[in-house]
């Protein structure tokens, strides 16, 4: 059974387009045949194999993509040599060589602009209904090909399509840009910064009295050749990376990396006699910066996850243990998902203290941190300062003082504490558990997103930032939180 065209066609499209372009340009000869042969082999293998990973493996083992690219490169080089040889016949023709360069640059602008326009048009004409239909048809074919796999009838697929269309339409009513990335694509891929230096080069080339050698020299001396490679765009991207890193505030290292990369760019630009960083030096030194922080980030993330208020960290476990004693526990997640929710609740009550003790043992074993040290640790303070801590100061203090002391293996929460927990969990009492600034990270990201893509764009794409929890606790104040001192 061949690789489904849904997957194969996009993979081979680039090669087909490149080959067609060469044919349209009138190319011929051994390298064109080489390209055709490599592509045909890729197509044939796509018909012989059903497993995409095996297909990719064979492509790499037979070096087909490299062979195609190699023939393409040699074809282009041969074409350039032919043009260059015909230029030198009949003596040095400066005007012709200069014109050829300028024409190539004009062609480059056209190509860049055409690609951009095509990308934006594609984004604007994206039809989510059409896309989901294609995905479901692929799923139907893919499942049919699996031995013992689920078979979907045409009627079932039609029903699924109809339901998906309804859901998509409903989503678009609330979030008009949910399936429209044209604004983002247009902005991110805006070729203006690349086209500008190319146009400057064209203008230089078309100046009165310009010669080909002078043109070549001036473009180098003015850094226009480097600008054309996208130096300005690179710097702009690094500035955006800093803003993004600060808006996400995942950890201090991502921000440090982004800031150091920009400083590096400016440092190398200042050192360079043409005012542009050498791309190879920039790339290698940037790589060194990322490597410098890799282990620090791994440690930060590990510690954070171990104590965390999400993803089954210690604080989340304490919270769960306390909730498990409340009457409504069997009716909420995670216990409601169990086959026997009431039994699952008892399981949590009985086993969670032993699990938490083990998690604390590992935290101490690996990082020398006791329970009390969590709140002094930079990862905890960062989570408070950047609003990523789920719990309020009040509830965190409560977990430390009222829940943790009882959370020992073979012990249970005393009845007076259960009553207090029931009160905290009750819908009739104000929510003092949730961090009142829990929406700030999302708001920060929304603000960054809107500043980049236009006011209102975040909501149009991802929906309104809704305060669904109505927290009533005081905001965090680390200086008054004695466990952090």
């Amino acid at each position, binding site marked *: 059974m061949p690789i489904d065209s849904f997957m194969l066609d996009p993979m081979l499209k680039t090669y087909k387009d490149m080959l067609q372009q060469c044919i349209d340009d009138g190319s011929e000869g051994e390298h064109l045949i080489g390209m055709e042969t490599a592509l045909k082999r890729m197509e044939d293998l796509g018909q012989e194999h059903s*497993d995409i*990973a*095996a297909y*990719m*493996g*064979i492509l*790499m*083992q037979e*070096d087909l*993509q*490299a062979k195609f*690219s*190699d023939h393409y*490169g*040699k074809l282009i*080089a041969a074409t350039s040599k032919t043009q260059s040889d015909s230029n*030198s016949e009949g*003596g*040095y023709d*400066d005007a012709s060589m200069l014109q050829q360069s300028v024409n190539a640059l004009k062609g480059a602008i056209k190509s860049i602009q055409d690609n951009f326009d095509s990308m934006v048009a594609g984004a604007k004409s994206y039809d989510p209904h059409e896309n989901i239909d294609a995905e479901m048809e692929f799923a139907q074919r893919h499942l049919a090909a699996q031995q013992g796999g689920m078979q979907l009838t045409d009627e079932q697929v039609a029903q699924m399509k109809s339901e998906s269309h309804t859901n998509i339409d409903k989503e678009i009513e609330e979030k008009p840009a949910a399936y429209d990335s044209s604004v983002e694509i247009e902005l991110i891929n805006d070729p203006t910064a690349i086209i500008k230096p190319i146009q400057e080069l064209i203008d230089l080339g078309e100046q009165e*009295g310009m*010669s080909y*050698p*002078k043109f*070549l*020299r001036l473009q*180098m*001396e003015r850094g226009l050749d480097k600008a054309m490679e996208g130096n300005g765009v690179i710097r702009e991207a690094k500035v955006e990376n800093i803003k993004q890193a600060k808006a996400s505030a995942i950890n201090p290292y991502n921000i440090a990396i982004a800031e150091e990369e920009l400083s590096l760019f400016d440092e190398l630009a200042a050192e360079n*006699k*043409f005012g542009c960083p*050498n791309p*190879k*030096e920039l790339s*290698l030194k940037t*790589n*060194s910066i990322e*490597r410098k922080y*890799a*282990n620090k980030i*791994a*440690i930060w*993330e*590990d*510690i954070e*996850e171990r104590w965390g208020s999400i993803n089954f960290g210690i604080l989340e476990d304490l919270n769960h243990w306390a909730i498990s004693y409340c009457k409504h526990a069997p009716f909420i997640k995670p216990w409601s998902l169990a086959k026997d929710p009431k039994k699952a609740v008892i*399981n949590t009550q*009985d*086993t969670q*203290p*032993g*699990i938490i*003790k*083990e*998690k604390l*043992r*590992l935290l101490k*074993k*690996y990082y020398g941190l006791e329970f009390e040290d969590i709140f002094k640790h930079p990862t905890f303070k960062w989570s408070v300062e950047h609003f990523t801590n789920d719990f309020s100061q009040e509830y965190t203090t409560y977990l430390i003082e009222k829940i943790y002391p009882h959370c020992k*293996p*073979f012990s249970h929460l005393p009845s007076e504490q259960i009553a207090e927990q029931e009160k905290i969990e009750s819908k009739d009492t104000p929510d003092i558990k949730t961090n009142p600034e829990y929406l700030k990270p999302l708001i920060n990201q929304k603000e960054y997103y809107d500043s980049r893509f236009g006011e209102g764009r975040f909501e149009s794409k991802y929906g309104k930032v809704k305060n669904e929890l109505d927290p009533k606790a005081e905001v965090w104040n680390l200086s008054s939180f004695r466990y952090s001192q």
Partner: protein
Amino acid sequence: MIDYLSEYKEYYKSRELRYADNPNYKNSYEAEVNISAAMNSCNELDEFQEKVGNLPDKCAFALMKDEYLMEQKHFEKHEEPFRKLICDRVIEGLNSCNNVQDAITLALDANNEGSMAINADEAQREFIYNLRELDKIEIYSNAEIPEKYKSEFAASVQEIKDKMVEGMNRQESDNRKFNPDWTEKPETCLERRHRRLIPLNDEHTKEQLSIYKSIINR
């Protein structure tokens, strides 16, 4: 009337200056000095075609060599043998290249082969991705819990171990499609390029590695 000869001499001088005083581009500088000298030795523009010979190709080779030397030094410093090997192959192979297209093919082949080796090497990181699962095994094995839950916890531990073995089998099966000899070798993760991704200290890393290896029997 434009003095093309003088303008070309100025142009090639500028090319020299691009790499002057840059220790990373010694070969490029030397190649540019040679081509600039060839140009400067001309009294007529027409002489250059004969004098230049394959000096432009040598400039391209020199630039490639300089940049691969930079990468080679970088990957040596960061103990990345498979990435360094790409550089070694290109630098060595440039000596046999007759023209720029040969050099491009050389680089393409070296990078393609190198990518396969890098992918096969990075596929050895299963141990790292299983660190949290190893934690769970330790937690569920040692947690102080009532007797009635012990068999359930033991079953959870076994399930995690079974999934690790399944994961290892799948990894080997997938990687053998590209490299028939590929086998999971978790000790590879102790090498610096992988080790930097592990948050634990050396002693604890080796301890967890030993446990993982015994589970997957590798």
